[in-house]
């Protein structure tokens, strides 16, 4: 729903988007309605206009005009509003009536618009809009508006209603996403529809350059089958740039804490249909921001009782990577075929433990990943309107942890050698290798323009081994060298019925199958362990429904429901050899997720307004809980626990002339509704004190507001100035249960950000200066783990396409 307009360099994105629309409209619809509107677009001097957009206002289906200014749109019989837009020209709307099997041909002349560029620029974001208009409770964000910023994918997600990010620190730090209170393995993250779990640590949401992303989709509660994962509470899909144009996108930014980020992307598509693309990126930061904490006296090992400010001294992070793609399009055997190699490496110094006051000075981790991939698409596979797509990825990830410093550091950066200590945390030189294969196949068939059948299969196979036994010998036992493997196979089927543009109904079912192999201690004696390899199969299913209709002009109502599933993990089923006892009879975690969304959009001469309200309800049960206690001997898993979430989200976007206001507000009431702490408490009717209490350590009220002022043709024609002020608000929440009398909270925080951007030659050259958290508020998402204070950055970007 959200269309953030922090940044818009229209000319740049325009054509890419149009191309996408062209591709997507074909792909998504995959159908050929019986009528056609054809046309040719001229300027008032009679020159044909390539890359203008032509779309049907009612459906947002559109194409761009070709090199000769021609376009062709397939439509249903009836009257349609044809819209033509191109930057620098006044948008044109025209009513067109076509009869059955009729083909209309139009000659269209656009008038130049020297006064101002179209502000709302609906078409520039129409793929995003199209997704937002689907029956799902989805927020799609056009990532291109952030391409001139130093912000990351995670920070963009953090601005979405119902979504919160928890970060441990600065660049490269651990990042965790929550959607409506679901977090960790309850939500799944995808990149171009492929689960990101196998990517290794460098290609995760906190590290991917924002310029690599075309758009970001967040599905709340109900997830379409095309994203194959056991997502209990929602899914995120990051869609990367897939331009078939020739382009160069190069940027460099420098900011506080010695942060350097570079990104270069070049792509070339020949007339013969050969595509070559290369992305290269680099991030570096010392993360040497100041934190307020207690100081350890290295002589006495005692902490100071007072807190003071210290500069981080061991938190350098850098990563580098490239992604090279080559392929062809529009061949007899394929609509698009690409081969890709992605290489990443990272280096990460670890500054502190999960309590801020514990400082480290020698711990670090390194990681490398190589991810080859193949993409294949074929339209009309042997049968008209039968489309196939396949993505296969195989990732090799090597992680190396180092902790060998004998001694202790404190926050002043002082070190004291201590031969009695073998490490700062846990002595290791360990090296872990993991291999993940991900294979996504989608088959779609469209019938009579009203019925769509989609079949998706997503298979991931994960295996891990410690290859270097010498390096690992410090802390390992024989179980470390036993194979661990996990194969997850998720098959989804959906049927979509779309009798008119006003109504759309989808039903779907998902089948989950897991095969897992891992070590289990088979010896009961006190003096030995005997790990054996065990294997288990597991299957379960889920289903859902999504509908949308437009009761009146400007209004949209959506409802969606899914019974979601999270399959138990390997540790939950088998245990982890040391501290956990597995439970092979665990049931999957389940949730009933219901969404009701209302949308209202209107626009006038200089003004545009849209508002979206969402109500959500989640009933989550069969929670897999870890119990500990003497009785179990060790950690033990069982299905116990229910959580009910009801929430409301409101989003208001308002545009008036050069000014735009984007705001949203989220309130989510996440309650523990399991009356009893354990099954035995149920037998004795011992009601839990935490019954009906708010789930701890989860933000429940937050808001985001952005105010943007744009000046077109500032100082010079084709140059634009953009000023954005924004703030985020997150209300105080408890670290633990209020009902227990917990008194540690994560305080209310309101960081303010400001940025000024200037783009020259319609976005070819761009410079952006940003001040983040300019009131220097103390920010933290997790207890005691402080994030950076005030910071400044500047980003230079060159973007050219043909």
């Amino acid at each position: 729903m959200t269309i953030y307009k922090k940044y818009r360099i229209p000319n740049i994105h325009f054509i890419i988007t149009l191309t996408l629309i062209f591709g997507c409209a074909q792909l998504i619809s995959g159908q050929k309605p019986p009528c056609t509107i054809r046309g040719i677009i001229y300027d008032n001097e009679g020159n044909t206009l390539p890359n203008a957009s032509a779309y049907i206002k009612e459906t947002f289906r559109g194409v761009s005009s070709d090199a000769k200014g021609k376009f062709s749109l397939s439509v249903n019989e009836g009257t349609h509003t044809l819209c033509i837009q191109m930057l620098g020209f006044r948008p044109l709307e025209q009513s067109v009536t076509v009869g059955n099997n009729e083909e209309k041909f139009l000659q269209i002349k656009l008038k130049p618009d020297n006064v101002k560029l179209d502000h709302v620029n609906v078409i520039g974001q129409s793929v995003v809009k199209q997704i937002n208009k689907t029956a799902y409770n989805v927020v799609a964000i056009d990532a291109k508006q952030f391409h001139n910023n130093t912000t990351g994918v995670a920070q963009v997600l953090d601005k979405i209603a119902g979504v919160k990010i928890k970060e441990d620190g600065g660049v490269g730090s651990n990042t965790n996403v929550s959607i409506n209170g679901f977090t960790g393995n309850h939500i799944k993250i995808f990149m171009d529809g492929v689960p990101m779990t196998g990517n290794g640590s460098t290609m995760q949401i906190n590290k991917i350059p924002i310029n690599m992303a075309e758009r970001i989709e967040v599905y709340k509660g109900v997830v379409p089958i095309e994203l194959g994962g056991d997502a209990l509470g929602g899914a995120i899909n990051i869609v990367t740039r897939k331009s078939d144009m020739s382009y160069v996108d190069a940027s460099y930014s420098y900011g506080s804490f010695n942060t350097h980020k570079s990104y270069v992307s070049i792509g070339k598509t020949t007339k013969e249909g050969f595509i070559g693309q290369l992305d290269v990126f680099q991030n570096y930061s010392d993360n040497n921001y100041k934190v307020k904490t207690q100081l350890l006296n290295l002589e006495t090992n005692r902490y100071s009782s007072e807190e003071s400010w210290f500069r981080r001294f061991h938190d350098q992070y850098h990563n580098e990577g490239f992604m090279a793609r080559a392929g062809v399009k529009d061949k007899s055997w394929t609509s698009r075929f690409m081969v890709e190699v992605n290489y990443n490496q990272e280096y990460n110094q670890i500054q502190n433990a999960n309590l801020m006051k514990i400082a480290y000075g020698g711990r670090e981790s390194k990681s490398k990943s190589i991810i080859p991939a193949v993409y294949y698409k074929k339209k009309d596979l042997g049968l008209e309107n039968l489309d196939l797509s396949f993505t296969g990825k195989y990732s090799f990830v090597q992680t190396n942890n180092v902790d060998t410093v004998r001694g202790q550091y404190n926050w002043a950066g002082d070190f004291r050698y201590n031969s009695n200590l073998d490490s700062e945390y846990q002595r290791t030189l360990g090296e872990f290798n993991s291999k993940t294969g991900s294979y996504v196949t989608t088959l779609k068939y469209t019938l009579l323009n009203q019925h769509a059948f989609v079949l998706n299969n997503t298979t991931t196979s994960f295996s891990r081994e410690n290859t270097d036994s010498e390096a690992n010998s410090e802390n390992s036992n024989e179980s470390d060298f036993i194979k661990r493997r996990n194969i997850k196979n998720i098959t989804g089927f959906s049927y979509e019925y779309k009798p008119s543009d006003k109504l759309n109904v989808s039903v779907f079912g998902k089948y989950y199958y897991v095969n897992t192999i891992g070590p289990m201690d088979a010896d009961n004696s006190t003096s030995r362990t005997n790990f054996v390899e065990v294997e288990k199969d597991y299957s379960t299913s889920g289903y859902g429904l999504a509908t949308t209709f437009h009761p009146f002009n400007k209004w949209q109502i959506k409802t969606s429901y899914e019974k979601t599933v999270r399959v138990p993990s390997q540790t939950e089923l088998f245990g982890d050899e040391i501290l956990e006892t597995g439970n092979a009879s665990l049931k999957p975690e389940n949730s009933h997720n219901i969404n009701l969304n209302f949308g209202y959009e209107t626009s006038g001469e200089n003004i545009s307004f849209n508002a979206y309200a969402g109500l959500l309800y989640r009933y989550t049960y069969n929670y897999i809980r870890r119990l500990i206690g003497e009785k179990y001997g060790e950690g033990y898993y069982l299905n116990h626990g229910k959580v009910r979430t009801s929430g409301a989200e409101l989003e208001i976007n308002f545009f008036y002339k050069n000014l735009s206001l984007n705001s949203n507000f989220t309130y989510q009431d996440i309650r523990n509704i399991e009356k009893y702490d354990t099954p035995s408490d149920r037998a004795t009717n011992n009601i839990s004190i935490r019954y009906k209490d708010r789930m701890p350590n989860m933000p429940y009220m937050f808001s985001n507001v952005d105010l943007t002022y744009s000046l077109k043709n500032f100082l010079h024609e084709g140059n634009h100035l953009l000023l954005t002020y924004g703030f985020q608000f997150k209300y105080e929440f408890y670290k633990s249960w209020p009902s227990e009398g917990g008194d540690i909270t994560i305080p209310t925080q309101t960081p303010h950000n400001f940025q000024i951007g200037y783009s020259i030659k319609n976005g070819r050259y761009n410079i952006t200066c940003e001040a983040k958290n300019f009131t220097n508020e103390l920010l933290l998402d997790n207890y005691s783990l402080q994030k950076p204070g005030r910071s400044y950055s500047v980003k230079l970007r060159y973007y050219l396409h043909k």
Partner: protein
Amino acid sequence: MNKKRWIETGLLFLLMIGMASCDDNNEVAPSVGSYFVSVSGESSDYVMQIENLEDANYSINQNVFELESQIQTWLYNDNPSTVIGLIYNQANPGVGVAIQNNNENIPEVVGEFQIGSRFTNYGFFGDYAITSVGGQAPVGEDGNTLTYEDGSTRDDGISFNFINIADGSLSLTTKTMQTLNITGNGEKATNSGIVDLGNGEFLTALVCSQTGEVIEGGSSSGIVNYPDSVWVAAMDEDLNVKRIYRDDRISYASGRYRSRYYNMMSKDENDDVYVFSGSYESTSTRPCGALRINDGATDFDPDYYFNIEELTDNYHFRRIWYISRGYFLMVFYNDLEITSSSPATRFGLVNLYDKTFSWINNFPTYDEIASYGEPLVQNNNLYLPVKLEGYDPAIYKIDPSTASATRGTEIDGATNIKAIYPLRAN
């Protein structure tokens, strides 16, 4: 856009803010009392203060404050002014806290310190709270890790942390001792238990095992080749080994639970030290039993031997706690066959003077007990926190003279009571 819609939108927004601002914070004033109690909630630990051990009802939300981290072990000795809480994470350096009562007799954190190494054993000696862990790699004078003849890293070091609680500084000093061939059998040792002899020496039991290969228990000990022997070392503050007590009548004196090596020794009112063995090793042929080191003696008392196992239906025990007058509370494994993580919730009482044993009367059966906390001894009675399946945790009063138990004070909403301690007013 007409006016009415604007108003509607505004109202909806206000409604949502209104909904959001109804918050729930049940503030309950903490009660004032004389016992410090550590309780666990679902994911946090709290410090409470209660007055009544025997017949009261408290709620966890009457706590005094929430602790920053969950505490694994509370240490408190006969000096009742300070309690020390230690975090045990697998290998993390932990932040320990020291708690004292303030002027208003309310507990508060008076200091925090860092423990660099993990610990598998703890106790008190002189001015110090001590933690220790074996299986460490010792370092030579040149600063390099020592190696065995085959070139592999040595693993016979024991690291001790000495936390000074007497001068209030809480200063922590780390010392390491090498144990290779300490008992003359060529093996390494891990230590278990600390008994202050009061003469500048302390006793600690040794668990000897083969060097190099670690099987489990957090890499502190390896294969035990001599499971029918017991060793106890007498050491001073500088970790000089003064003498080693040895015997073959019982197995080593340590209670094993995962990586833990629980204390199996205690001094009685006559300053005689009783040394127990629960015969943890399945290869041991010695029954569970106890020996005695008489006050000032340099050997085990050859005339004292107590075969406990023949009185306990062959159940082995994991931990012991001294009450008084020769009485010990013991906890036994639930099953006859045991592993390092086997549950142990059977409670019994032994008297080492008259060599008697009794299971406890009026006490929950082992399968009813979910967990228990560290006990408190007062007036010859023992107060044991017990959490029963399906009930809130309660403090059981155990009278050793009758071997009977009474259910006392409960704490609603707590998942566990970890420790009780009569913290002195300052």
